[in-house]
C-alpha cells in the first residue's frame, strides 16, 4: 500500500508566518527607540536625496565676505574657512555617508552570503579553506584592513566604499556559515536531503530563507560601523577628497580651525554620530522584533 501523506504544513506555515510578521511589526512599533531610529534613517535619506532643494546655498560656493562665521540665522550651522555654508555641506555630506555606509554593506552581503552558504552547506574542504581565509582576513582589524585597502586602491568615494565592503565580508561570511550549519540540522531540511532534492534547490528553497533574516539583521547592525569607517577614511584623507562635501572630509579640513571655529568640528561629527545612532537603533529594533528572546 502506498501512503500519500496529506501535508497540512504549507497553509499552516503561511498563516503562522503572517502572524509572526504581524507580531514582529507590533513589537517593533511598540518600541519608541526603534521607531526613532527608523525616523532618523528616513531623515538622513531625505537629506541625501533632496540636498539640492534643502540647501540654502551651493555647498561649494566660497564666500570670502563671511569666512569662519559662527552659526547665525543666515548660516544656521555657520561657515567654514572658505565661507561655504556648513548646513548645505552637511546635507550634501549625507550622500557620501549613505553611499559608503549602505552600499559597502550591501556589497559585502551580496558577496559573503553565497560564500557562507556554500561553505556551510558543503562543509569539508571547501569550508575549511574558506574559513581559514576568513580567519586570516579577520586577523587584520576592520579599520586597519579598510585603511590598507583604501591605500592600495587610491583615495576616492568609490574606492572607500569598495574597501569598506571588502573589509566587512569576513564577518558576514562567518555569520552566514554559522546560520547555515544550524539550518542544516532542522528536521525539514534534513528531510529534503533524504528525499533527494538537489543541493541547489535545498540551498535556495530551504536554507536561504532561514538564514537570510538573521544575516540581514547582522548586516543592518554593521551599517553604522561602515558609516563611521567611511568618515574615518575621509578624515584620514583616504576617502572622499575635498572640496566635495563629506562629513569626514569636513572634519579633516576643519582640523586647523577648530579653536577659532569649533562648530566646524562639532556639526559634521554630530551628523555622523546621529546617523550611526539611528541605524543602530533601527538595527536593534529589527533584531528585537524578529528575535524577542533577548529582551523581556
Amino acid at each position, binding site marked *: 500500500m502506498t501512503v500519500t501523506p496529506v501535508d497540512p504544513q504549507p497553509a499552516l506555515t503561511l498563516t503562522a508566518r503572517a502572524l509572526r510578521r504581524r507580531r514582529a511589526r507590533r513589537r517593533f512599533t511598540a518600541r519608541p*527607540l526603534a521607531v526613532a531610529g527608523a525616523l532618523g534613517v528616513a531623515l538622513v535619506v531625505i537629506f541625501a536625496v533632496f540636498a539640492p532643494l534643502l540647501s540654502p546655498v551651493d555647498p561649494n560656493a566660497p564666500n570670502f565676505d563671511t569666512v569662519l562665521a559662527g552659526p547665525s540665522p543666515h548660516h544656521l550651522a555657520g561657515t567654514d574657512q572658505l565661507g561655504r555654508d556648513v548646513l548645505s555641506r552637511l546635507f550634501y555630506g549625507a550622500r557620501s555617508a549613505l553611499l559608503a555606509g549602505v552600499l559597502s554593506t550591501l556589497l559585502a552581503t551580496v558577496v559573503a552570503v553565497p560564500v557562507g552558504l556554500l561553505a556551510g552547506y558543503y562543509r569539508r574542504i571547501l569550508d575549511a579553506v574558506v574559513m581559514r581565509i576568513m580567519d586570516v*582576513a579577520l586577523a587584520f582589524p576592520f579599520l586597519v584592513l579598510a585603511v590598507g585597502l583604501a591605500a*592600495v586602491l587610491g583615495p576616492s568615494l568609490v574606492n572607500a566604499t569598495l574597501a569598506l565592503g571588502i573589509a566587512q565580508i569576513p564577518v558576514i561570511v562567518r555569520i552566514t556559515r554559522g546560520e547555515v550549519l544550524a539550518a542544516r540540522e532542522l528536521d525539514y531540511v534534513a528531510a529534503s536531503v533524504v528525499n533527494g532534492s538537489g543541493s541547489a534547490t535545498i540551498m535556495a528553497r530551504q536554507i536561504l530563507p532561514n538564514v537570510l533574516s538573521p544575516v540581514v539583521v547582522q548586516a543592518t547592525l554593521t551599517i553604522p560601523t561602515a558609516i563611521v569607517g567611511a568618515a574615518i577614511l575621509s578624515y584620514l584623507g583616504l576617502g572622499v577628497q575635498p572640496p566635495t562635501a563629506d562629513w569626514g572630509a569636513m572634519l579633516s579640513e576643519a582640523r586647523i580651525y577648530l579653536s577659532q571655529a569649533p562648530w566646524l568640528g562639532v556639526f*559634521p561629527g554630530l551628523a*555622523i554620530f546621529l546617523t550611526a545612532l539611528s541605524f543602530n537603533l533601527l538595527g536593534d529594533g529589527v533584531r528585537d522584533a524578529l528575535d524577542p528572546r533577548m529582551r523581556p
Partner: protein
Amino acid sequence: MRWYLTRRVAASLLTLFLATIVVFLGVRALPGDPAVALSAESNDPAVVAAIQHKYHLDEPVVSQYGHWLGLALTGDLGDSPLTRLPVSSVLANRIPVTVELTLLALVIGLVIGVPAGVIAAVRPGRITDYLASGVALAGLSIPHFWFGIVLILLLAVHLHLLPAAGFVPILQDPVSNLLHMLMPAFVLGAGLAAVIMRQTRSAMLESLGADYIRTARAKGLSEWSVVTVHALRNSLVTVVTVFGLQLGALIGGVVTIEQVFDIPGIGKLTLDSVFQRDYPTLQGVVLLTAAAYILVNLLVDLTYTVINPRIRVTGAPT
C-alpha cells in the same frame, strides 16, 4: 584537552603564516615603486636599480617573500628608508606606548561596562536599563576620532583641564604621562565599555532567567550574591569570548585615536608609514598587529577553557 590545545595553537600558527603572505603581497600592491620611495624620490635610474638590487626588488615575488620572511623570523624587519632605523627597534619603541593606552582603555571599559551591564539586566525595561542601554548605544555609534576632537575642544582648549595632545614617556614624568593618556584612554575605553555593557547585559539577562538562579534564590541567598556570584560568573564566560573579537575594534580605534591625540604608538606608525610609503615599516607594523590579534584570541580561547568547566572536561579524556 591536550589535543584541543595542540590543534588550536597549530591553527593560530597557520593563520599567522598566511597573514605574513597577505601582509607582504598587500604592501607590494600599494601604489608607487618602493625603490623610488627608498631612493628618496630620486629619478636617477642607476640609483633606483642599485636600491632594487640591494632590497632584492629585482627578483621574483616569491623569492622576495622568502628573503623577507627569513629575515623577519630572525627579528629583522628591514630598515626604514626614511629614518634609516631598523623597523624592529622602531616597533620596540612604539609598542609600550600603545600597550599602555590599550590597557588603560581596557580597564576603563571593564570598570564602566560590566557594572552598567549588570545594573541594566537586574531591572530590565526600567529606567536604569533604558539609561544604561541608551548610553551604550550612543557609545557604540559615536565616531571615536570625533569624540576625541570634541573632548580636546572642551577639556583642553576651553577648560584647560588636560593637555590637548602629545605624549610624555612614563619614565620621564609619570604624572604628565597619565594626564596625556587620560583623554585618549577614556575615548577608547568608552567605546569598549559600550560593547562590554551590551554583552554583559544580554548574558546577564540569560543567566538571570536560568533555573539555577531560582535555585540560588530558593537557598535563601541575598539578591546581591545571586546576582554577583551566580549570575555574573556565568555571564563572564560569555563576555570573555566576545572580548577577543572586540580586540580588533580596539586596535582599529587605536589607529585613529593616536592620530587625533598625536600619540607616537603603533597606530600612528601605521598611518604614517601608509602616507610616507615607508613599506618596510608598514609591513612590520601590520604584521605585528595581526600577530598580536591572533595571539590574544588564542589566549582568550585558552582562558575560556579555564573559566568554563564544561569545556574543560569535554576535551579531557579522563
